[in-house]
Protein backbone atom coordinates (compact mmCIF):
# COMPACT_ATOMS: atom_id res chain seq x y z
CA UNK A 1 0.00 0.00 0.00
CA UNK A 2 2.84 2.34 0.96
CA UNK A 3 4.61 1.54 -2.29
CA UNK A 4 1.41 2.23 -4.25
CA UNK A 5 0.98 5.62 -2.53
CA UNK A 6 4.62 6.49 -3.14
CA UNK A 7 4.33 5.62 -6.84
CA UNK A 8 1.05 7.52 -7.13
CA UNK A 9 2.69 10.55 -5.51
CA UNK A 10 5.56 10.39 -8.01
CA UNK A 11 3.03 10.11 -10.84
CA UNK A 12 1.16 13.21 -9.64
CA UNK A 13 4.42 15.16 -9.24
CA UNK A 14 5.47 14.13 -12.74
CA UNK A 15 2.14 15.36 -14.13
CA UNK A 16 2.64 18.66 -12.30
CA UNK A 17 5.99 19.00 -14.06
CA UNK A 18 4.47 17.97 -17.39
CA UNK A 19 1.74 20.60 -17.25
CA UNK A 20 4.00 23.51 -16.33
CA UNK A 21 4.46 26.42 -18.72
CA UNK A 22 6.40 25.36 -21.86
CA UNK A 23 9.75 27.06 -22.49
CA UNK A 24 9.05 27.76 -26.13
CA UNK A 25 5.50 27.04 -27.35
CA UNK A 26 6.56 26.96 -31.03
CA UNK A 27 8.88 24.01 -30.36
CA UNK A 28 6.16 22.20 -28.40
CA UNK A 29 3.74 22.77 -31.28
CA UNK A 30 6.22 21.22 -33.72
CA UNK A 31 6.78 18.28 -31.37
CA UNK A 32 3.03 17.77 -30.99
CA UNK A 33 2.58 17.62 -34.76
CA UNK A 34 5.37 15.04 -35.02
CA UNK A 35 3.87 12.95 -32.23
CA UNK A 36 0.46 13.05 -33.92
CA UNK A 37 2.02 11.43 -36.94
CA UNK A 38 4.16 9.03 -34.92
CA UNK A 39 1.62 7.93 -32.31
CA UNK A 40 -1.66 8.66 -34.09
CA UNK A 41 -1.40 8.55 -37.86
CA UNK A 42 0.90 5.51 -37.78
CA UNK A 43 -1.72 3.63 -35.74
CA UNK A 44 -4.44 3.97 -38.38
CA UNK A 45 -3.34 0.76 -40.11
CA UNK A 46 -3.56 -1.52 -37.09
CA UNK A 47 -6.82 0.09 -35.89
CA UNK A 48 -8.36 -0.35 -39.35
CA UNK A 49 -7.41 -4.02 -39.61
CA UNK A 50 -8.51 -4.89 -36.08
CA UNK A 51 -11.77 -2.94 -36.36
CA UNK A 52 -12.66 -4.59 -39.65
CA UNK A 53 -12.31 -8.10 -38.26
CA UNK A 54 -13.89 -7.09 -34.96
CA UNK A 55 -16.98 -5.85 -36.79
CA UNK A 56 -17.06 -9.00 -38.90
CA UNK A 57 -16.90 -11.33 -35.88
CA UNK A 58 -19.51 -9.34 -33.92
CA UNK A 59 -21.93 -9.56 -36.85
CA UNK A 60 -21.42 -13.29 -37.37
CA UNK A 61 -21.65 -14.10 -33.66
CA UNK A 62 -24.77 -11.96 -33.25
CA UNK A 63 -26.32 -13.70 -36.25
CA UNK A 64 -25.56 -17.22 -34.99
CA UNK A 65 -26.85 -16.39 -31.52
CA UNK A 66 -30.13 -14.87 -32.68
CA UNK A 67 -31.35 -17.56 -35.05
CA UNK A 68 -34.86 -17.15 -33.75
CA UNK A 69 -37.62 -16.13 -36.19
CA UNK A 70 -39.05 -13.80 -33.50
CA UNK A 71 -36.02 -11.53 -33.86
CA UNK A 72 -35.97 -9.41 -36.98
CA UNK A 73 -32.65 -9.81 -38.82
CA UNK A 74 -31.96 -6.06 -38.86
CA UNK A 75 -31.22 -6.41 -35.15
CA UNK A 76 -27.93 -7.98 -36.22
CA UNK A 77 -26.95 -4.61 -37.72
CA UNK A 78 -28.16 -2.80 -34.62
CA UNK A 79 -26.22 -5.15 -32.35
CA UNK A 80 -23.09 -4.74 -34.42
CA UNK A 81 -23.40 -0.94 -34.40
CA UNK A 82 -24.01 -0.58 -30.67
CA UNK A 83 -21.34 -3.12 -29.66
CA UNK A 84 -18.80 -1.32 -31.79
CA UNK A 85 -19.73 2.19 -30.70
CA UNK A 86 -20.25 1.45 -27.01
CA UNK A 87 -17.40 -0.90 -26.32
CA UNK A 88 -15.17 -2.18 -29.05
CA UNK A 89 -14.02 0.99 -30.83
CA UNK A 90 -13.15 2.77 -27.63
CA UNK A 91 -12.09 0.09 -25.16
CA UNK A 92 -10.64 -2.65 -27.35
CA UNK A 93 -8.87 -0.07 -29.53
CA UNK A 94 -7.47 1.51 -26.36
CA UNK A 95 -6.15 -1.86 -25.20
CA UNK A 96 -4.53 -2.39 -28.60
CA UNK A 97 -3.03 1.11 -28.46
CA UNK A 98 -1.80 0.49 -24.90
CA UNK A 99 0.27 -2.31 -26.41
CA UNK A 100 1.49 -0.45 -29.44
CA UNK A 101 1.77 3.18 -28.33
CA UNK A 102 2.28 2.55 -24.60
CA UNK A 103 5.25 0.24 -25.00
CA UNK A 104 6.68 2.60 -27.62
CA UNK A 105 6.47 5.62 -25.28
CA UNK A 106 7.90 3.75 -22.28
CA UNK A 107 10.83 2.32 -24.22
CA UNK A 108 11.59 5.60 -26.02
CA UNK A 109 11.64 7.67 -22.82
CA UNK A 110 13.32 4.88 -20.86
CA UNK A 111 16.12 4.62 -23.41
CA UNK A 112 16.54 8.39 -23.27
CA UNK A 113 16.85 8.12 -19.50
CA UNK A 114 19.52 5.39 -19.46
CA UNK A 115 21.54 7.04 -22.24
CA UNK A 116 21.57 10.33 -20.28
CA UNK A 117 19.58 12.20 -22.94
CA UNK A 118 17.08 13.29 -20.28
CA UNK A 119 19.97 14.48 -18.09
CA UNK A 120 21.26 16.42 -21.10
CA UNK A 121 17.87 18.14 -21.48
CA UNK A 122 17.78 18.98 -17.77
CA UNK A 123 21.31 20.34 -17.95
CA UNK A 124 20.32 22.67 -20.76
CA UNK A 125 17.61 24.04 -18.48
CA UNK A 126 14.81 22.30 -20.38
CA UNK A 127 11.88 20.89 -18.41
CA UNK A 128 12.44 17.36 -19.73
CA UNK A 129 9.15 15.97 -18.44
CA UNK A 130 7.14 18.65 -20.16
CA UNK A 131 9.20 18.61 -23.35
CA UNK A 132 8.99 14.83 -23.76
CA UNK A 133 5.57 14.00 -22.38
CA UNK A 134 3.24 16.97 -22.95
CA UNK A 135 3.34 16.78 -26.79
CA UNK A 136 2.59 13.05 -26.59
CA UNK A 137 -0.40 13.63 -24.30
CA UNK A 138 -1.80 16.42 -26.48
CA UNK A 139 -1.20 14.39 -29.65
CA UNK A 140 -3.02 11.32 -28.36
CA UNK A 141 -5.85 13.39 -26.87
CA UNK A 142 -6.36 14.99 -30.27
CA UNK A 143 -5.79 11.97 -32.49
CA UNK A 144 -7.25 9.01 -30.56
CA UNK A 145 -10.84 10.27 -31.02
CA UNK A 146 -10.12 10.29 -34.76
CA UNK A 147 -8.94 6.68 -34.46
CA UNK A 148 -12.13 5.80 -32.59
CA UNK A 149 -14.30 7.33 -35.33
CA UNK A 150 -12.30 5.46 -37.98
CA UNK A 151 -12.67 2.28 -35.94
CA UNK A 152 -16.45 2.73 -35.71
CA UNK A 153 -16.81 3.19 -39.47
CA UNK A 154 -14.46 0.39 -40.43
CA UNK A 155 -15.99 -1.96 -37.83
CA UNK A 156 -19.47 -1.42 -39.18
CA UNK A 157 -18.24 -1.87 -42.76
CA UNK A 158 -16.48 -5.09 -41.66
CA UNK A 159 -19.71 -6.32 -40.10
CA UNK A 160 -21.69 -5.45 -43.19
CA UNK A 161 -19.29 -7.21 -45.58
CA UNK A 162 -19.01 -10.31 -43.36
CA UNK A 163 -22.77 -10.51 -42.77
CA UNK A 164 -23.67 -10.18 -46.42
CA UNK A 165 -20.85 -12.43 -47.64
CA UNK A 166 -21.76 -15.18 -45.14
CA UNK A 167 -25.40 -14.82 -46.11
CA UNK A 168 -26.61 -14.25 -42.52
CA UNK A 169 -28.22 -10.88 -43.33
CA UNK A 170 -29.17 -8.95 -46.43
CA UNK A 171 -27.46 -5.68 -47.21
CA UNK A 172 -30.78 -3.78 -46.84
CA UNK A 173 -31.50 -5.28 -43.41
CA UNK A 174 -28.01 -4.51 -42.15
CA UNK A 175 -28.17 -0.90 -43.33
CA UNK A 176 -31.64 -0.54 -41.83
CA UNK A 177 -30.34 -2.06 -38.58
CA UNK A 178 -27.42 0.29 -38.21
CA UNK A 179 -29.80 3.25 -38.56
CA UNK A 180 -32.50 1.84 -36.31
CA UNK A 181 -33.01 3.46 -32.87
CA UNK A 182 -29.71 5.28 -33.12
CA UNK A 183 -28.75 7.24 -30.01
CA UNK A 184 -26.19 9.93 -30.89
CA UNK A 185 -25.11 10.20 -27.23
CA UNK A 186 -23.44 6.81 -27.59
CA UNK A 187 -20.86 8.44 -29.85
CA UNK A 188 -20.23 11.14 -27.24
CA UNK A 189 -19.91 8.44 -24.57
CA UNK A 190 -17.42 6.55 -26.72
CA UNK A 191 -15.34 9.65 -27.40
CA UNK A 192 -15.28 10.67 -23.72
CA UNK A 193 -13.98 7.20 -22.87
CA UNK A 194 -11.39 7.50 -25.63
CA UNK A 195 -10.07 10.76 -24.15
CA UNK A 196 -9.67 9.20 -20.71
CA UNK A 197 -8.01 6.12 -22.17
CA UNK A 198 -5.65 8.23 -24.31
CA UNK A 199 -4.54 10.14 -21.23
CA UNK A 200 -4.05 6.91 -19.25
CA UNK A 201 -2.01 5.23 -22.00
CA UNK A 202 0.30 8.19 -22.55
CA UNK A 203 0.80 9.38 -19.00
CA UNK A 204 1.19 5.95 -17.39
CA UNK A 205 3.60 4.74 -20.08
CA UNK A 206 5.61 7.95 -19.93
CA UNK A 207 5.78 7.63 -16.13
CA UNK A 208 7.13 4.09 -16.41
CA UNK A 209 9.78 5.20 -18.91
CA UNK A 210 10.76 8.45 -17.20
CA UNK A 211 11.83 6.83 -13.95
CA UNK A 212 13.74 3.88 -15.39
CA UNK A 213 16.97 3.10 -13.54
CA UNK A 214 19.54 0.69 -14.86
CA UNK A 215 19.97 -0.64 -18.38
CA UNK A 216 18.18 -2.19 -21.31
CA UNK A 217 16.65 -4.93 -19.15
CA UNK A 218 14.92 -2.31 -17.00
CA UNK A 219 13.71 -0.50 -20.11
CA UNK A 220 12.11 -3.75 -21.26
CA UNK A 221 10.50 -4.19 -17.85
CA UNK A 222 9.22 -0.61 -17.88
CA UNK A 223 7.73 -1.23 -21.29
CA UNK A 224 5.90 -4.34 -20.05
CA UNK A 225 4.71 -2.51 -16.93
CA UNK A 226 3.45 0.34 -19.09
CA UNK A 227 1.25 -2.03 -21.09
CA UNK A 228 0.02 -3.96 -18.03
CA UNK A 229 -0.81 -0.92 -15.87
CA UNK A 230 -2.35 1.03 -18.75
CA UNK A 231 -4.55 -1.95 -19.66
CA UNK A 232 -5.67 -2.47 -16.06
CA UNK A 233 -6.48 1.21 -15.63
CA UNK A 234 -8.36 1.25 -18.94
CA UNK A 235 -10.52 -1.66 -17.77
CA UNK A 236 -11.09 -0.03 -14.37
CA UNK A 237 -12.01 3.34 -15.86
CA UNK A 238 -14.21 1.61 -18.41
CA UNK A 239 -16.41 0.39 -15.56
CA UNK A 240 -16.36 3.72 -13.73
CA UNK A 241 -17.10 5.81 -16.84
CA UNK A 242 -19.85 3.46 -18.00
CA UNK A 243 -21.55 3.76 -14.63
CA UNK A 244 -21.14 7.55 -14.60
CA UNK A 245 -22.10 8.23 -18.20
CA UNK A 246 -24.79 5.65 -18.94
CA UNK A 247 -26.61 5.22 -15.63
Amino acid sequence: MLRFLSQFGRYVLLLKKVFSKPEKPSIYYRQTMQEMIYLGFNSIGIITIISFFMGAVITLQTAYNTENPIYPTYLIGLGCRDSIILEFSSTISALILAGKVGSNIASEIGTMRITEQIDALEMMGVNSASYLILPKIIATLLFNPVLTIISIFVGIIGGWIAGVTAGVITSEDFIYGIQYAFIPYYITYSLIKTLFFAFIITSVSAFQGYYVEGGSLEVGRASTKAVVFSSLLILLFNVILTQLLLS
Partner: protein
Amino acid sequence: MIRVKNVDKSFNGTQVLTDISVEFEPGKTNLIIGRSGSGKTVLLKAIMGLHDVDSGEIWFEDKLFNKLDFTGKKEIRKEMGVLFQASALFDSLTVEQNVRFPLDMFTDKSPEEKTERVNFCLNRVNIINVNHLYPAELSGGMKKRVAIARAISLNPKYLFCDEPNSGLDPLSAILIDELIKELTKEFSMTTIVNTHDMNSVMENGEKIIFLSDGVKCWEGTKDEILHSDCDILNDFVFANALAKKLRLEEE
Protein backbone atom coordinates in the same frame (compact mmCIF):
# COMPACT_ATOMS: atom_id res chain seq x y z
CA MET B 1 34.67 29.96 -10.25
CA ILE B 2 32.86 26.97 -8.76
CA ARG B 3 33.25 26.27 -5.05
CA VAL B 4 32.26 23.04 -3.38
CA LYS B 5 32.11 23.18 0.41
CA ASN B 6 31.82 20.20 2.77
CA VAL B 7 29.61 18.19 0.45
CA ASP B 8 28.21 14.86 1.64
CA LYS B 9 26.11 12.51 -0.43
CA SER B 10 24.72 9.05 0.27
CA PHE B 11 22.45 6.64 -1.58
CA ASN B 12 20.19 4.36 0.49
CA GLY B 13 22.43 4.69 3.52
CA THR B 14 25.69 4.15 1.62
CA GLN B 15 28.02 7.11 1.92
CA VAL B 16 29.29 8.02 -1.57
CA LEU B 17 30.85 11.44 -0.96
CA THR B 18 32.30 12.55 2.38
CA ASP B 19 33.10 16.15 3.25
CA ILE B 20 34.33 17.20 -0.19
CA SER B 21 35.64 20.76 -0.45
CA VAL B 22 37.33 22.13 -3.55
CA GLU B 23 37.52 25.21 -5.76
CA PHE B 24 37.46 24.95 -9.55
CA GLU B 25 39.09 27.88 -11.27
CA PRO B 26 38.01 29.64 -14.48
CA GLY B 27 40.12 29.30 -17.62
CA LYS B 28 41.56 26.04 -16.31
CA THR B 29 40.89 22.39 -17.02
CA ASN B 30 40.08 21.00 -13.60
CA LEU B 31 40.20 17.23 -13.30
CA ILE B 32 38.45 14.88 -10.90
CA ILE B 33 40.28 11.57 -10.95
CA GLY B 34 39.90 8.29 -9.14
CA ARG B 35 39.17 4.62 -9.60
CA SER B 36 35.80 3.40 -10.87
CA GLY B 37 33.26 3.72 -8.06
CA SER B 38 35.27 6.37 -6.23
CA GLY B 39 32.45 8.93 -6.51
CA LYS B 40 33.72 11.03 -9.44
CA THR B 41 30.50 10.94 -11.44
CA VAL B 42 28.36 11.50 -8.34
CA LEU B 43 30.44 14.56 -7.45
CA LEU B 44 30.20 15.91 -11.00
CA LYS B 45 26.45 15.30 -11.12
CA ALA B 46 26.06 16.90 -7.69
CA ILE B 47 27.90 19.99 -8.94
CA MET B 48 25.66 20.09 -12.01
CA GLY B 49 22.58 19.71 -9.79
CA LEU B 50 21.55 16.34 -11.17
CA HIS B 51 21.96 14.83 -7.68
CA ASP B 52 20.81 16.67 -4.55
CA VAL B 53 23.52 16.69 -1.88
CA ASP B 54 22.76 15.62 1.71
CA SER B 55 24.72 18.52 3.17
CA GLY B 56 27.25 21.13 2.08
CA GLU B 57 27.26 23.98 -0.41
CA ILE B 58 27.89 24.34 -4.13
CA TRP B 59 28.59 27.89 -5.26
CA PHE B 60 28.61 29.18 -8.82
CA GLU B 61 30.30 32.58 -8.44
CA ASP B 62 28.20 34.21 -5.68
CA LYS B 63 25.13 32.00 -6.08
CA LEU B 64 24.47 29.08 -3.76
CA PHE B 65 23.41 26.71 -6.54
CA ASN B 66 22.16 23.77 -4.47
CA LYS B 67 19.71 25.96 -2.57
CA LEU B 68 18.20 27.60 -5.65
CA ASP B 69 14.72 26.67 -6.86
CA PHE B 70 14.08 25.16 -10.32
CA THR B 71 13.94 28.57 -12.02
CA GLY B 72 17.13 29.78 -10.35
CA LYS B 73 18.97 26.60 -11.29
CA LYS B 74 17.62 26.88 -14.82
CA GLU B 75 19.24 30.29 -15.25
CA ILE B 76 22.66 28.96 -14.21
CA ARG B 77 22.19 25.81 -16.27
CA LYS B 78 21.87 27.92 -19.38
CA GLU B 79 25.52 28.84 -18.76
CA MET B 80 26.59 25.20 -18.52
CA GLY B 81 27.74 22.93 -21.31
CA VAL B 82 27.92 19.22 -20.63
CA LEU B 83 29.66 16.37 -22.36
CA PHE B 84 28.18 13.13 -21.06
CA GLN B 85 30.04 9.83 -20.97
CA ALA B 86 27.81 8.32 -23.68
CA SER B 87 27.60 11.67 -25.54
CA ALA B 88 23.82 11.84 -24.91
CA LEU B 89 23.04 13.13 -28.37
CA PHE B 90 19.33 13.06 -29.16
CA ASP B 91 18.78 9.97 -31.33
CA SER B 92 15.83 11.40 -33.21
CA LEU B 93 17.67 14.57 -34.29
CA THR B 94 20.38 15.01 -36.90
CA VAL B 95 23.82 16.37 -36.03
CA GLU B 96 22.75 19.87 -37.06
CA GLN B 97 19.49 19.66 -35.13
CA ASN B 98 21.35 18.44 -32.04
CA VAL B 99 23.72 21.41 -32.05
CA ARG B 100 20.89 23.76 -32.95
CA PHE B 101 18.62 22.49 -30.16
CA PRO B 102 19.85 24.82 -27.36
CA LEU B 103 19.75 27.76 -29.77
CA ASP B 104 16.14 26.95 -30.74
CA MET B 105 15.18 26.53 -27.12
CA PHE B 106 16.83 29.55 -25.53
CA THR B 107 17.62 32.19 -28.13
CA ASP B 108 15.65 34.41 -30.43
CA LYS B 109 18.26 34.31 -33.19
CA SER B 110 17.09 34.18 -36.79
CA PRO B 111 17.32 30.81 -38.62
CA GLU B 112 20.34 32.13 -40.58
CA GLU B 113 22.14 33.18 -37.40
CA LYS B 114 21.44 29.80 -35.84
CA THR B 115 22.77 27.96 -38.90
CA GLU B 116 25.86 30.15 -38.83
CA ARG B 117 26.44 29.40 -35.15
CA VAL B 118 25.86 25.66 -35.68
CA ASN B 119 28.40 25.60 -38.51
CA PHE B 120 30.89 27.58 -36.42
CA CYS B 121 30.60 25.13 -33.52
CA LEU B 122 30.85 22.08 -35.79
CA ASN B 123 33.85 23.53 -37.61
CA ARG B 124 35.46 24.36 -34.28
CA VAL B 125 35.37 20.67 -33.31
CA ASN B 126 36.50 19.66 -36.81
CA ILE B 127 33.20 18.09 -37.85
CA ILE B 128 32.46 18.84 -41.49
CA ASN B 129 29.78 17.62 -43.93
CA VAL B 130 27.87 15.46 -41.49
CA ASN B 131 25.13 17.94 -40.60
CA HIS B 132 22.40 15.71 -42.00
CA LEU B 133 23.55 12.47 -40.35
CA TYR B 134 21.94 10.94 -37.27
CA PRO B 135 23.99 10.05 -34.14
CA ALA B 136 23.66 6.33 -34.91
CA GLU B 137 25.60 6.96 -38.14
CA LEU B 138 28.61 8.52 -36.38
CA SER B 139 31.72 6.97 -34.85
CA GLY B 140 32.34 7.26 -31.09
CA GLY B 141 34.88 10.07 -31.55
CA MET B 142 32.58 12.01 -33.85
CA LYS B 143 29.70 11.68 -31.39
CA LYS B 144 31.91 13.16 -28.65
CA ARG B 145 32.90 16.07 -30.88
CA VAL B 146 29.29 16.76 -31.86
CA ALA B 147 28.38 16.63 -28.16
CA ILE B 148 31.13 19.19 -27.48
CA ALA B 149 29.81 21.36 -30.31
CA ARG B 150 26.35 21.21 -28.74
CA ALA B 151 27.82 21.98 -25.31
CA ILE B 152 29.53 25.16 -26.56
CA SER B 153 26.70 26.37 -28.80
CA LEU B 154 25.41 28.81 -26.17
CA ASN B 155 28.88 30.07 -25.19
CA PRO B 156 28.82 28.47 -21.74
CA LYS B 157 30.77 29.75 -18.74
CA TYR B 158 31.10 26.24 -17.35
CA LEU B 159 31.95 23.03 -19.18
CA PHE B 160 31.49 19.62 -17.56
CA CYS B 161 32.89 16.49 -19.14
CA ASP B 162 32.17 13.03 -17.76
CA GLU B 163 34.88 10.63 -18.93
CA PRO B 164 35.22 12.37 -22.30
CA ASN B 165 37.55 9.82 -23.84
CA SER B 166 36.07 6.60 -22.55
CA GLY B 167 35.57 4.09 -25.35
CA LEU B 168 37.85 5.97 -27.74
CA ASP B 169 41.08 4.84 -29.35
CA PRO B 170 44.23 6.57 -27.98
CA LEU B 171 44.52 9.00 -30.89
CA SER B 172 40.89 10.09 -30.77
CA ALA B 173 41.17 10.38 -26.98
CA ILE B 174 44.14 12.75 -27.35
CA LEU B 175 42.24 14.83 -29.91
CA ILE B 176 39.27 15.17 -27.55
CA ASP B 177 41.57 16.11 -24.66
CA GLU B 178 43.30 18.76 -26.77
CA LEU B 179 39.98 20.11 -27.94
CA ILE B 180 38.67 20.48 -24.39
CA LYS B 181 41.88 22.22 -23.34
CA GLU B 182 41.80 24.61 -26.31
CA LEU B 183 38.13 25.48 -25.86
CA THR B 184 38.62 26.09 -22.15
CA LYS B 185 41.32 28.68 -22.89
CA GLU B 186 39.53 30.14 -25.91
CA PHE B 187 36.23 30.78 -24.10
CA SER B 188 37.70 31.22 -20.58
CA MET B 189 35.42 28.52 -19.26
CA THR B 190 35.57 26.79 -15.90
CA THR B 191 36.00 23.24 -17.09
CA ILE B 192 35.63 20.17 -14.90
CA VAL B 193 36.62 16.84 -16.38
CA ASN B 194 35.96 13.52 -14.79
CA THR B 195 38.48 10.91 -15.84
CA HIS B 196 40.57 7.92 -14.89
CA ASP B 197 42.72 8.15 -17.98
CA MET B 198 46.30 9.04 -17.03
CA ASN B 199 47.03 10.41 -20.52
CA SER B 200 44.30 13.01 -19.94
CA VAL B 201 45.69 13.74 -16.52
CA MET B 202 49.19 14.39 -17.84
CA GLU B 203 47.89 16.34 -20.84
CA ASN B 204 45.18 18.49 -19.24
CA GLY B 205 45.61 18.44 -15.48
CA GLU B 206 46.03 22.07 -14.57
CA LYS B 207 44.24 21.34 -11.34
CA ILE B 208 43.55 17.80 -10.16
CA ILE B 209 41.65 16.34 -7.26
CA PHE B 210 41.90 12.65 -6.47
CA LEU B 211 38.95 10.81 -4.94
CA SER B 212 39.09 7.48 -3.20
CA ASP B 213 35.97 5.89 -1.68
CA GLY B 214 34.21 9.25 -1.83
CA VAL B 215 36.92 11.12 0.05
CA LYS B 216 39.20 13.76 -1.45
CA CYS B 217 42.67 12.35 -0.80
CA TRP B 218 44.86 14.68 -2.80
CA GLU B 219 44.82 17.98 -4.70
CA GLY B 220 47.51 19.38 -6.99
CA THR B 221 48.70 19.79 -10.57
CA LYS B 222 49.97 17.41 -13.25
CA ASP B 223 53.54 18.36 -12.33
CA GLU B 224 53.01 17.47 -8.70
CA ILE B 225 51.11 14.23 -9.23
CA LEU B 226 54.19 12.18 -10.10
CA HIS B 227 55.92 13.15 -6.89
CA SER B 228 53.10 12.73 -4.42
CA ASP B 229 53.57 10.91 -1.13
CA CYS B 230 49.94 9.78 -1.12
CA ASP B 231 50.09 5.97 -1.38
CA ILE B 232 46.58 5.47 -2.74
CA LEU B 233 47.22 8.09 -5.42
CA ASN B 234 50.54 6.47 -6.33
CA ASP B 235 48.84 3.09 -6.65
CA PHE B 236 46.39 4.69 -9.06
CA VAL B 237 48.90 6.76 -11.04
CA PHE B 238 51.50 4.03 -11.40
CA ALA B 239 49.05 1.21 -12.00
CA ASN B 240 50.05 0.52 -15.58
CA ALA B 241 53.32 -1.04 -16.68
CA LEU B 242 54.51 1.99 -18.66
CA ALA B 243 54.05 4.34 -15.73
CA LYS B 244 55.85 1.91 -13.41
CA LYS B 245 58.75 1.70 -15.88
CA LEU B 246 58.98 5.49 -16.14
CA ARG B 247 59.02 5.80 -12.39
CA LEU B 248 61.76 3.22 -12.01
CA GLU B 249 63.82 4.99 -14.68
CA GLU B 250 63.32 8.30 -12.89
CA GLU B 251 64.40 6.78 -9.57
